[in-house]
């Protein structure tokens, strides 16, 4: 038990430190690296909760794909952080006000937190006993059965996202020479070569 507690505090502390550094780093590339550290620690927290599938997904998707994409974008765009920070003094009070209100709200909510007595019985898909069935298997059992509607809907959302990004960025450019392999393969000697018998003593006209 004590090991779990220690692990929790280590992961939680590191996640908070990582999160703060994401905001306060001057170099955006460093921010992204700290973000990756935060993701790893969040994954650790999920493992402690017994949700190893979510933990692995977090590492694979967020660290492996999203954060790497962030890195690419940050490196490709020339982000000048000092320019972004120029107007910050004007907005800092408004930001602090909103943040303060939100913090007060959160404190109120979590200090007076109760859970509905029958909450456990209402749950649509209660967490099964990890000794009987693994987390991943349990998710697989409901994802394509009870939750098939959401699964399909999520697929359509991704399709719309794909159509949208293509519509908003794709341009047909003229004057670009592209390799058309079919044309190259279909090319025959007779299309381009002409065999000429050259008589001796005469050149080609």
């Amino acid at each position, binding site marked *: 038990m004590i090991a779990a507690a220690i692990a929790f505090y280590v992961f939680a502390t590191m996640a908070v430190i990582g999160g703060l550094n994401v905001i306060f780093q001057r170099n955006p590339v460093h921010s992204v690296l700290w973000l990756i550290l935060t993701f790893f620690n969040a994954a650790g927290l999920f493992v402690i909760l017994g949700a190893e599938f979510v933990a692995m997904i977090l590492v694979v998707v967020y660290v492996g794909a999203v954060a790497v994409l962030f890195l690419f974008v940050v490196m490709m765009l020339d982000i000048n952080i000092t320019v972004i920070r120029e107007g910050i003094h004007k907005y800092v009070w408004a930001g602090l006000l909103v943040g303060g209100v939100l913090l007060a709200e959160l404190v109120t*909510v979590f200090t007076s937190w109760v859970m509905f007595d029958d909450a*456990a019985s*209402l749950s649509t898909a209660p967490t099964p006993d990890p000794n009987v069935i693994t987390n991943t298997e349990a998710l697989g059992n409901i994802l394509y059965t009870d939750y098939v*509607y959401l699964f*399909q809907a999520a697929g*359509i959302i991704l399709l*719309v996202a794909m*159509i*949208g990004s293509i*519509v908003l960025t794709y341009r047909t450019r003229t004057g670009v020479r592209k390799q058309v392999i079919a044309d190259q393969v279909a090319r025959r000697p007779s299309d381009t070569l002409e065999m000429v018998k050259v008589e001796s003593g005469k050149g080609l006209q």
Partner: protein
Amino acid sequence: MTQMPNLVPAYAEIFLALSGLLLLMVGVFRKTDPVRGVARLAILAFSVAGVLVLTTNAVAVTTFSGMFAVNAFTSFAKLLVLLGGGFAVFLMLPWAKNEGIARFELPVVMVFAVLGMMMMISANDLISLYVGLELQSLSLYVLAAFHRGNLRATEAGVKYFILGALASGLLLYGSSLIYGFAGTTSFVGLASALSSAQENVGVIVGMVFVISGLAFKISAVPFHMWTPDVYEGSPTPVTAFFSVAPKIAALCLFLRILVGPFDDLMFQWRQVLIVICVASMLWGAVAAIAQSNIKRLMAYSSIGHVGYALIGLVAATPEGARGMIYYMLIYLFMNVGTFAVILSMRVKDRYVEGVNDLSGLSKTNPAIALALTVLMFSMAGIPPLAGFFGKYFVFVAAINAGLIPLAVIGVLSSVIGAYYYLRLIKIMYFDEAGEGLDKPDLSTGVVMGVCALAVVVFILVPEPMLAGADAAAAALFQG
């Protein structure tokens, strides 16, 4: 083994999803005029989906493990959304011919947006609500930024996207608080948890977050900042779409969620909604006065109309719900008609959007001027026209629910709002004639005529139009 879910209630959605995929292929492989070809097929898809909604309308059922509910109310709301979507695509046909920026993805994305709206309306679980909402929103972000070479469109798209993502975040955060209390996300489970449990700060905060997220989607004050920019930056047929379909869908969802799972917290949400409602009515009326772009004007007008429709929701009685449904039905026709007029504002083959481009229209093109006059009188709520009855029903519902101050504010703000509707009429009839508009396209003229006629004859034949709305409101309060 788990059983195959009952697909019959969701036939319309499944059909629309499949036809969206099919239309995408048609658009890619069709060589001649793909935009209008796909747009025509999209209208066909909307019509077939409407028939499917009507045929699966019989009884209230849920399916997909209780995540998807169908009853008379959802069917009626879906028909309204499909009608709005169909009108918008129909208005797109002549526009696509005249304007070079149209591409076949436009109607395809609109089909998916309508699918998202129908999923929202039928949502019976916080997760399916969010999924439907997100499908709708994502499609709308794309539509808003569609005119990508245009600075305003890009600004509109980015603004809408960032604020919309924030609103979705609020909604999700609120949902997580509610889930944390009740241990379930299904509307049925939430209703029983919230009715038997004591009031709890966490749930109330969560509910307010959910309300904020939804208020953003219907562009109610104070979550309306994106509306004028998005209306101005989007292509006009898309603006017509924006002004009807998503609003109807989100308002119906609002109604379903507040009188469903959150019914027992009515005392709490009523206060929040009264503020939103009053602010929308007043700001919609006042801010529109200074607008010179007719699409921005319509944005503020729609903000005001959302305020009036919300009165029916605040009343929280079957009568109020009925009033709100009437209001949306009438609003659909008024708004589509007005956008048909805006789409016929062309001077020398170029679309114009200035209010002053209408000057002297009664002399240069009396038919359009007459149609717009009827529509504007109706929007202002002048008695024999449909718009008056829309307002009348919600105000009466508010008075019967004991909300007399709210009704008084509603009447006052509609008087203020009448100013800018009447100003358009004054510009058309009493100002010096300008260059005059080009002859409108046939289909634009047809939509304009149908909508103006619907607004005029409403008083003669209200029963057939309202019978469906009555059944819908009754179904909502049954359970």
